[in-house]
């Protein structure tokens, strides 16, 4: 084995062209694809930012693979359970990994996947780490954003947006404080000098029985997430793995979504192969209230999730309700089988009333308390992975997910899953596998495969079919949605890649012109994406991309062509990014989303539509080892722009580490 390993290392060192991954390129292609896919659904657009944040955090605190156990390796959340297990086995059998290119030799990994993993792993071991003196590390980040034209000129606060974040770590302790002011909000909306959004947490991590203790704001995910998952929804990429590695996780909250987090304390314990997690939270959340139906009883009319407080009504709904949540989770591993149980309860200070509901709202949650119980498993014998979870809430509505993944050979992997979410199954902090943003009212079947058709040539395809037995937003009848995607990737060398993606989306919507009983029509779009990426040198990256979209029912369509140039100037040291994008679409329906590089910990995926262009220039300068400044200027002119013909955006970021 050692000889084989040596051969691998030598051959890799001899033949590999060392690709360079500066900070800006740490967002793997797969993640940007997922982020763009998410943005197709407006309600999920914030999740893209969550993805970016998780990746940046991972790059700042990479996984030390040489000493990592399976739990630690699962922090590489874009890997499948198969890949995590294969990597764990490889490290256990062969010992120290000397170069990340060695990972390409692990079953289930390819050169491109190894490249993707590279920025997020460290080859140093714990021993080296502990030899370093314990010291306090501080990290301060500030973002300032101003847009032209301002979104809402009547808003009470300035049109600029500000984010400030402080993080520290010292040995087993770490903590963070985050504040944010959105455009149009006042910096201090109340009488006290407290910013519109303020979040803080303190984390202690251990390796014994007590693994993690968090006090303050935190996020959590248990099992497949049908009960609790405040982070990323799993299983929405059609041609990627479909199932991201599971495992219970509690983590300090560092995002800026102002409502979907817990505020209190959480503990994660582990003894042998059994783990337990307990959490308690009391958080004030935004909701609009009224007294309809019972003048003596104030009730929640609906929850406000935007986090924007720029109008009288949104200011009135700010922190209007206290939500108390607590729960307990148990996990145990029996050889290849992992079992997990969760019980949790949410209660609100005033009840949610569903008075006089429309037919669509018939199953919406009413009451003060919602309990969820889930039971799940994961079984991985050899090249087969079976997983599932069932959840019930207090209304005895259920969610059920059953999936199957198998890898008949190292070149082929296949995923299939069935999901069932009862109308009325409500989980206020859940994001289950293959759930939609509304979370319930669907029965779905999903399948995909990834096949290494030839050397450097990858073919993948996926289908996601969903049936909605009850009415839903913009559709007053039982309906279905379908997504299909075919992806062809050719990676002839470390420096060059071609990709072609053809995808289709189909859903049923109400006809706007129909009176009385609403009639529906099929809303169907097709999208073809062609991209070419090339690294002519270690300091220069070029990406050319052409997207073509068709909207079948209206006959409208759109096309975009963009060129990205990323150039690292070592002498300064600085990095410059430039993009020029030409857009021509018939209407909003034929809009096209394109990921943009942005400030660290930020994400930008503008919807491109109308006739015009969008460009940006971003410069990152690193005056010292301990600080960097990033400035982005984006501008566009388009007949279809929502804000007007000419738009501009200036973002400035400063980071200091000491």
């Amino acid at each position: 084995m050692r000889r084989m390993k040596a051969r691998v290392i030598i051959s890799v060192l001899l033949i590999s062209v060392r690709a360079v991954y500066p900070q800006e390129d740490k967002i793997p292609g797969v993640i940007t694809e997922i982020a763009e896919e998410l943005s197709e659904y407006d309600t999920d657009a914030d999740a893209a930012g969550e993805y970016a944040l998780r990746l940046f955090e991972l790059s700042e605190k990479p996984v030390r693979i040489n000493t990592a156990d399976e739990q630690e390796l699962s922090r590489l959340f874009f890997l499948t359970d198969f890949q995590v297990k294969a990597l764990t086995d490889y490290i256990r059998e062969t010992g120290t990994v000397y170069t990340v290119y060695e990972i390409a030799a692990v079953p289930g990994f390819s050169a491109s996947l190894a490249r993707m993993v590279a920025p997020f792993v460290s080859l140093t071991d714990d021993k080296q780490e502990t030899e370093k003196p314990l010291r306090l590390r501080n990290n301060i980040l500030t973002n300032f954003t101003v847009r032209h034209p301002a979104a809402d000129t009547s808003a009470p606060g300035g049109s600029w947006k500000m984010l400030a974040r402080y993080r520290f770590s010292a040995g087993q302790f770490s903590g963070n404080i985050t504040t944010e002011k959105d455009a149009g909000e006042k910096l201090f909306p109340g009488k006290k000098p407290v910013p519109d959004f303020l979040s803080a947490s303190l984390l202690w991590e251990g390796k014994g029985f007590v693994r993690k203790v968090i006090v303050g704001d935190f996020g959590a995910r248990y099992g497949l997430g049908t009960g609790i998952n405040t982070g990323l929804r799993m299983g929405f990429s059609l041609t990627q793995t479909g199932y991201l590695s599971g495992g219970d996780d509690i983590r300090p909250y560092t995002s800026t979504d102002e409502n979907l987090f817990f505020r209190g304390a959480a503990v994660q314990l582990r003894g042998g192969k059994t783990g337990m997690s307990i959490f308690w939270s009391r958080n004030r959340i935004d909701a609009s209230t009224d007294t309809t139906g019972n003048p003596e009883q104030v009730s929640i009319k609906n929850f406000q999730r935007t986090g924007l407080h720029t109008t009288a009504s949104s200011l009135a709904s700010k922190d209007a309700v206290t939500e108390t949540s607590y729960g307990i989770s148990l996990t145990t591993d029996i050889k290849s089988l992992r079992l997990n149980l969760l019980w949790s309860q949410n209660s609100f200070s005033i009840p949610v009333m569903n008075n006089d509901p429309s037919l669509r709202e018939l199953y919406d949650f009413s009451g003060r308390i919602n309990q969820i119980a889930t039971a799940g498993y994961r079984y991985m014998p050899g090249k087969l992975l079976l997983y599932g979870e069932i959840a019930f809430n207090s209304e005895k509505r259920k969610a059920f997910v059953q999936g199957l993944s198998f890898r008949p050979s190292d070149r082929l992997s296949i995923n299939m899953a069935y999901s069932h979410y009862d109308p009325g199954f409500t989980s206020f902090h859940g994001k289950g596998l293959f759930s939609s943003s509304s979370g319930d009212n669907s029965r779905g079947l999903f399948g995909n495969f990834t096949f290494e058709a030839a050397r450097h040539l990858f073919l993948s395809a996926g289908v996601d079919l969903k049936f909605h037995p009850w009415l839903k937003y913009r559709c007053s009848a039982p309906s279905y949605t379908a997504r299909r995607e075919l992806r062809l990737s050719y990676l002839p060398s470390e420096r060059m890649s071609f990709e072609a993606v053809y995808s289709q989306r189909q859903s049923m919507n109400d006809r706007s012109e129909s009176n009385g009983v609403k009639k529906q029509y099929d809303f169907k779009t097709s999208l073809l994406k062609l991209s070419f990426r090339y690294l002519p040198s270690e300091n220069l990256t070029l990406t050319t991309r052409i997207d073509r979209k068709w909207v079948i029912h209206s006959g409208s369509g759109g096309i975009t062509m963009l060129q990205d140039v990323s150039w690292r100037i070592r002498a300064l040291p600085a990095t410059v990014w430039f993009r020029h994008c030409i857009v021509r679409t018939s209407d909003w329906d034929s809009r096209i989303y394109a990921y943009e590089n942005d400030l660290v910990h930020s994400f930008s995926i503008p919807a491109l539509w109308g006739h015009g262009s969008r460009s940006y220039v971003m410069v990152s300068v690193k005056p010292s080892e301990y600080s960097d400044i990033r400035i982005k200027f984006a501008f566009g002119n388009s007949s279809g722009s929502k804000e007007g013909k000419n738009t501009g955006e200036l973002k400035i970021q400063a980071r200091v580490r000491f």
Partner: protein
Amino acid sequence: MYSLHKISVSVIFIFLFSSASGSDPYFPAAGAVETGMGWSCVMKPGFWSSFHNQALLPFNPSAAAGINYHNRFGISELATKTAAIVVPLENAGLGLIYSHFGYRDLARHSAGLACGLRLSEKISGGIQADFFAEKTAGEYRERRSLSFEAGLHIRLSEQASLGIHVFNPVPETLRHDRLPSSLRVGAGLILSSELKVSAETEMSTEGGPDIRAGFEYDPVRNMSLRGGFSSTGNCFCFGVGYELKPVQIDLGFSTHDRLGISTAVSLIFSFR
């Protein structure tokens, strides 16, 4: 004598399909070589190509001056006259171009000062500052615009190369008048010492994508035959060139599915 109707229809078509960048088939910057190849030249070194992609300027072997006459659809009122000069420097090149389109009642003057630089063994870049002045008879005011364009050239291998060019990536708010913006990307291959092929695509804010392909074949020493296609207007192109040192003369022809044939002739004098 051509009817006023045909002239006006042609002008409408030109402005409907063209960008002021000169990269549109019916508003080329210049070059009979480029016309003959269907304007698929963003990666192909050459005297006139240096103004289609300024990153090609360092590839000019010697100082040269050239003139070009492009007669659209055989209508002299729609002709473009261009003059240019290039000066090679060590690992760099400078270029100056002047162009005049139109006639007494509708004229556009454009001038550009370009610079190209070899950034590394494989990569070169270039930039050009542009000035446009449009004059229309009657009560219409004269319009003047300033902008810039820039390009990159990358040698993928001994046989393959890549060209990227952007025109006018400038916020509209910084200028008084609207100018279109365009993006152009292409790749070229040297199949043998006699045959070169190229393909590119361009998208402009004033028109849909234009896909182009072209070839250049040298059957005998000093002589070249060219052909090409551009998807806008289903335009087929062909051309011929002959080099009689220090002079190079080229002819190019392009068809339009509705407006007929355009002719380009250019003369380049090299100062060796």
